[in-house]
């Protein structure tokens, strides 16, 4: 008993000490300024108005000096406001909800696998084990061409899927924002593995009859983190072009990329990747300050491609039978961890409160000078953000990040539930997760959100948003009919 009590007391004491320390350091300016202001006020009150006027007259200001000083001040202020980067607002976004005809329950997936991979029972067993532990649910969707035994991935089917996903998301977005196609100034579409000619962005321009002087871009091959790369590109473009709307479409087209061979390392994506897409409207117009949902604060991109192992860890190649698939190397989690560390090191100083940064600095100095055996201090990112959207790449990714960043189950709930309901939808999964948080009614004005995505290359990209106005629970969207069932408990291994 006595042993437990000191521990408890010490932990309580430690908690309060920590809280006090944080409050002090984060508000240090206030702590310094308040005594000074009080001092000045007391002094003024003591001197009285006549004394103040006398001091003023003794300074001998004349008109020219006053005018020059005021012009200088106005000039500096103007330069400051002009060179400030424009605020980028996220007006609204819409996610694609696949129809029930695309639904793939576990049992159907396994039965089809058995029939397609008749000659490779070991590969079938491997797929079953992956599926059991994947964290996916029974409502994830695959495009119609993949439902066939064997799948029939024609170019026409791939275009059909692209049209269905992209037009549905954009249509939904336009309905929500009441924006006209002619108002869109910038269009960015990212889809990593399907890149037809004409491009998907040309397909959007054609369908919605966008303007002929539109700035359109199509990003392909950039992996699951391409969504944030598109946001970054849109941000840079919106700095250059004033008063514009940017439409960003993030998706991944499954049809042409379903691996038809039997190599185990390449069967993994088949088990995890599912249909999904999102359309996002960004704006730098002043009038959207009121109606926008979020404001973009930071985008931090980290590329580890210079390292050979990182470059090859997600690699598209042909298997010995000549079938093309994506090979995931065994070091994937290690490399992801390192990429995350790099990204955190860059984003930390931008978002962490002063208290955390100081602690980190002290432990760093301490480890270098005093004792290398000190544990490295992991900054508490929960103080910098209210919500976390971790790309739902797979259960292992979410587990790893939860452990590394010391997040609670509620923080990663959006990611886990998105993985369960929609599977790994690649670049659009971050938007489904954001939709989950909104659908649960947890998004309040002033909340800060951190979106992290990993992708081939190997890249780790982050975006930081700030909620501009409290978001009312949406009455439409992909979560509308199932949000009441969530959160669900996802067992370690699902019994098939």
């Amino acid at each position, binding site marked *: 008993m006595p042993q437990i009590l000191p521990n408890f007391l010490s932990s309580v004491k430690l908690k309060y000490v920590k809280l006090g320390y944080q409050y002090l350091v984060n508000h240090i300016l206030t702590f310094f300024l308040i005594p000074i202001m009080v001092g000045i006020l007391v002094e003024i009150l003591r001197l009285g108005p006549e004394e103040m006027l006398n001091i003023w007259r003794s300074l001998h200001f004349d008109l020219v000096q006053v005018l020059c000083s005021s012009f200088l001040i106005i000039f500096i202020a103007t330069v400051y406001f002009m060179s400030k980067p424009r605020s980028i607002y996220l007006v609204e976004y819409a996610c694609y909800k696949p*129809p*029930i*005809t695309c*639904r793939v*329950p*576990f*049992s*159907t997936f*396994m*039965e*089809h696998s*058995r*029939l397609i991979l008749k000659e490779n029972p070991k590969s079938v067993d491997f797929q079953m084990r992956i599926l059991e532990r994947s964290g996916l*649910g*029974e*409502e994830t969707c695959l495009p*119609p061409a993949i*439902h*066939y*035994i064997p799948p*029939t991935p024609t170019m026409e089917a791939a275009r059909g899927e692209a049209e269905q996903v992209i037009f549905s998301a954009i249509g939904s977005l336009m309905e929500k924002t009441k924006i006209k196609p002619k108002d869109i100034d910038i269009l960015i579409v990212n889809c990593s593995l399907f890149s037809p000619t004409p491009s998907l962005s040309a397909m959007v321009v054609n369908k919605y009859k966008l303007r002929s002087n539109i700035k359109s871009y199509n990003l392909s091959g950039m992996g699951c983190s391409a969504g944030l790369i598109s946001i970054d590109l849109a941000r840079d473009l919106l700095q250059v072009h004033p008063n514009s709307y940017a439409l960003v479409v993030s998706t991944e087209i499954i049809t042409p990329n379903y691996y038809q061979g039997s190599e185990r390392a390449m069967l993994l994506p088949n088990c995890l990747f599912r249909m999904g897409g999102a359309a996002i409207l960004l704006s730098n117009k002043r009038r959207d300050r009121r109606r926008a949902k979020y404001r973009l604060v930071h985008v931090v991109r980290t590329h580890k491609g210079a390292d050979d192992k990182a470059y090859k860890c997600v690699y598209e190649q042909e298997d010995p039978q000549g079938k093309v698939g994506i090979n995931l190397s065994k070091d994937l989690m290690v490399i992801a961890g390192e990429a995350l560390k790099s990204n955190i090191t860059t984003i930390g100083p931008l978002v962490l409160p002063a208290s955390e940064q100081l602690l980190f600095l002290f432990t760093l100095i301490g480890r270098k000078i005093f004792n290398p055996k000190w544990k490295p201090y992991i900054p508490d990112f929960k103080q910098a953000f209210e919500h976390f959207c971790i790309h739902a790449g797979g259960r292992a990714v979410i587990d790893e990040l939860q452990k590394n960043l010391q997040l609670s189950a509620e923080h990663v709930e959006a990611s886990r539930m998105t993985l369960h309901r929609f599977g790994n939808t690649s670049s659009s999964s971050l938007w489904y997760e954001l939709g989950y948080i909104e659908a649960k009614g947890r998004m309040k004005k002033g909340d800060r959100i951190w979106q992290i995505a990993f992708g081939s290359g190997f890249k780790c990209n982050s975006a930081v948003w700030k909620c501009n106005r409290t978001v009312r629970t949406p009455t439409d969207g992909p979560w509308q009919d199932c949000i009441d069932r969530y959160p669900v408990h996802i067992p370690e291994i699902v019994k*098939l």
Partner: protein
Amino acid sequence: MVSSMAEGLIYDIKLSSVGPGTVTEPDMVHEPSDMDLAMKLHYLKVIYYFGKQAFEGLTTLKIKEPLFMVLNYFPVICGRFRRAESGRPYIKCNDCGVRFIEAKCEKTMDEWLEMTKENASLEKYLTPNQIIGPELGFSPTVLLQFTKFKCGGMSMGLSWAHVLGDAFSAAEFLNLLGKVVAGEKPNRPINLAHLKTNSTNPESPLTNTEDPLSVKRVGPVGDIWIPVNNCKMEAFSFSVNATQLSHLQSKISNNGTDFSPFEALSAVIWQCIGKIRPESEPKVVTICKMMEQNRADGNNLLISVVKAAYPIVEANPSELAALMKNAAIDKIEKIENAIEKDNGVSDFIVYGGNLTFANLEEAKFYEIDYRGEKPIYVSYRVDGVGDEGAVLVLPGPPKNGGRTVMAILPENEATELKSELKKWFMD
């Protein structure tokens, strides 16, 4: 000869699966009754022939969509079989779905119907023929094949494992599909499955009674659910229109007792078969009828056995018809006892254990309408029939008002039977 001829006939075959649109709760199971398990080696095959208008302009996705919706109400047929520890089969409702097959036929529908008049076996190309097994857990129990004909007509071929239900259940499923296509909501509760009960031993001690005559025990088939035949079975059908039917009924009727179309036709065919099987006369026949009211889910069969005390060849069809009319229905407990003896593990057949006559006159096959179109013709047969054969009396197309008879017999008997029957229907 038939297979090589048919190879080019049906082409462009594509397989996929259709399951329920909404998720079934986990761990839902359906435990087939004893009657269901007695029928597990039989398969119902129904073919609906629709004219051009029914499916005009529909893409495959548009045909699949209502299926997804109607299957929400049938979680049992979307499940797959498993065996309990005792060996008794049950269905795990895991949303695996029904198999959906698309095919094309190079003939027009009229040409095809002409061809099948001569050779009903050809119809096996319009229905999927996959049986349950050897892997129970990965075998679909219901399969649908949509075959498009050169003229634009479409046939909808259903393969329905008899263990799920009788012809009335199969017809109900397809009729509900027609309703969902029309935009109506089915009047059926969604969850007819339940959570797995722990296997309880039956309370009443089973007396070692003899198996009833109606249900024949066959050698263990293991996980391949089809009976082993000693000879190849062939199906052939013929239609009897309303005038021929009433003519026949009046010929047979005796002292004012009227016989139903089923009794009249069955008696006549019984005698004809008796004539063509002189050494092994079918003295014992099984009669099968479906219950129409108070149906539970699954098989609701009323089975009776008729024994003729004298040689069939000499018998008067009126006497045979009278025997059938007065046949006592087997108590269901007798059949259940036979199956419960080893907890549903043994294998039985009903059709073909003895020469079987199935009364399907009231089956609601022609009630379906797909987008307002009624089927031109409905063909029905049973696969997995035992060596003694089976005769099914079905409703004829509503316009004719008569009956269609489908006989599944050893292949050498078909021609002989046809010539015998001609004698009855010539005049």
